[in-house]
């Protein structure tokens, strides 16, 4: 029974999400768009984490995608949609090159190197003022779709849905076993004939492209880039907190986390214009200390143990 219900619910939810702009106000739509962008980042970060590699490079690829899109738009007159695709392609090229270097690293060395690479990106962009506008940033004349928020929403929604789809594919095909075994024990993974580097590069590439495209869409929406705001560590910290709160190593964890924290911080903004982001830091610390599996992981565990108990009782 469960097998037939699940696709129906999914299709209903997608249809509901598509027609949502006709029912809700502009403000809520805007909040949802932001949440979907962060959801994409959170999920793509989590995809990399499932291989056991903690990447701090989210903000870097986000920013590179944003700049690639803006520059092709303003300099070479690309159509915004084409420029977003180009941004994805450009980030893929960079991630491919970097992947060969950094994916041999493990543990804190991988994390810190990706963080340093983010910094290097922002320094390079700040020092190429002719192309990138330097420290003051760059503005393009037109917002994507001439500011039609319904179309923008659909664009962002489709990116989020594609990300969810990819994440589910990763979780339901044999890739899942390969990635899990790499995370758990690389020696065993290698002796089972898994091409560790190949899988890492594949996941790294896909997650970076998603991050780059998220950055491209985000800036097309606001038509503005600057090294400070585009490479802001918020684009790393918020997605991380979302994935952690929801539950890492799962698709729905990041989705739930993004919704919970996205709405919570939007609500907090009303009371605390300064420093409402502290909620993210507190959440990260509390979750790490007390609920390492996150909301989704913990509830799922509870349900499973409940079922097992029930079964053993009835027997």
């Amino acid at each position, binding site marked *: 029974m469960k097998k037939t219900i699940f696709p129906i619910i999914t299709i209903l939810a997608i249809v509901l999400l598509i027609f949502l702009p006709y029912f809700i106000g502009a403000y809520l739509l805007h909040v949802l768009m932001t949440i979907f962008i962060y959801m994409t980042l959170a999920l793509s970060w989590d995809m990399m984490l499932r291989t056991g590699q903690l990447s701090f490079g989210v903000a870097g690829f986000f920013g590179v995608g944003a700049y690639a899109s803006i520059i092709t738009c303003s300099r070479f007159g690309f159509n915004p949609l084409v420029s977003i695709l180009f941004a994805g392609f450009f980030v893929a090229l960079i991630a491919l090159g970097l992947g060969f270097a950094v994916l041999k690293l493990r543990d804190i060395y991988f994390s*810190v*190197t990706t963080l340093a690479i983010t910094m290097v990106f922002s320094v390079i962009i700040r*020092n190429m003022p002719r192309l990138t506008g330097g420290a003051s940033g760059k503005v393009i004349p037109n917002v994507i779709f001439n500011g039609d928020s319904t179309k923008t929403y659909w664009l962002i929604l489709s990116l989020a849905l594609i990300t969810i789809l990819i994440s589910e594919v990763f979780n339901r095909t044999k890739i899942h076993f390969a990635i899990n075994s790499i995370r758990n024990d690389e020696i065993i993974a290698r002796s089972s004939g898994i091409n560790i580097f190949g899988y890492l590069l594949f996941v790294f590439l896909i997650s970076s492209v998603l991050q780059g495209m998220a950055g491209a869409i985000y800036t097309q929406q606001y038509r503005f880039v600057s090294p400070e705001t585009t490479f802001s560590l918020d684009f790393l910290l918020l997605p991380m907190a979302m994935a952690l709160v929801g539950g890492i190593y799962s698709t729905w964890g990041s989705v739930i986390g993004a919704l919970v924290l996205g709405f919570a911080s939007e609500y907090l903004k009303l009371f*605390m214009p*300064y*420093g409402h982001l*502290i909620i*993210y*830091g507190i959440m990260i610390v509390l979750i790490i200390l007390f609920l390492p599996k996150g909301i989704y992981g913990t509830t799922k565990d509870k349900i499973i143990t409940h079922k097992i108990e029930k079964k053993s009782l009835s027997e």
Partner: protein
Amino acid sequence: MLNLEKTNKSLKKTLIAFIIFLIVVGIWKPLALVYGIQRGGLYSLIGLPLALILGIVGILNLAHGDFLTLGLYIGYIFFNSWSIDPLISMAPLFFILFGLGMVIYSILIKRVLKAEHLNQLLLTFGISMIIIELIKIIWTTRPRSVYTSYASSVTLGNMSIGMYEFIYPAMAIAVLVILQLFLKKTRLGQAASAVGQNPKGAEIVGINTNVVYLVVFSIAFGIIGVAASVMLPRTPVFPLSGNPYTLKSFALVAMAGLGNLNGILIGGITLGVAEAIVQSIPGYEGWSDVVFFGILIAVILLNAYRRPES
């Protein structure tokens, strides 16, 4: 003991290379050398506590720079409310951050000592965020500064050199010497070195690792307090003023290797001088940050490829 001789030899080689490097720069760009030594001293002073925590407690503290910011703000309060000179408030700052380190260790760090590295990194990242946002809530983002009469530049001929900044390398050396004395001569220090080398072995021979971790963590925080008060007269204070030092300090540790405190000083001054050279080339001032990150990435990659894959 055999090993020790070998490290002594390699240390001598590094030292000679280091001195030659300094002399060459001194002839080529004397001003860059002076600036570089001053700044490198500061980098080493800030890098030492990170190295201490990473080497002995085994935790990479990503909130390192933000505790430095916190120290700067506390020093600013001392100056602003009670007009206590930053160099005098060094002592209270040491103890305040020492206490803070104790609290942070006992409440938070202690719980993740045995957890995965991932969790440890994320925890300190979360702490970093809390501190930044807390500072924004309490003091807003308005930059503040402390003015002292002695921390101004001296003009020599046609170039101006800040004399005060020579305190950075001096303090770095002083802290390094005291730390080395502590680690080599006191019982607790010897225990700390033992724990740093092999925590399980240290536990087996009866060292209370928990106490060692607590003390080392707190001392490292105390040093952060000292660094904050030393740099206060010449540093603008704002919520992110310490933040870049986290990565820079880690770059130093990655360069020097774990447990090599002397290497921090050599590496810090080398990087400081390299940065000053890049900054002295007209038109390329903005690229100086790449020096640090570039070297960090290069060193990590080199180490990774030099290690045989196993």
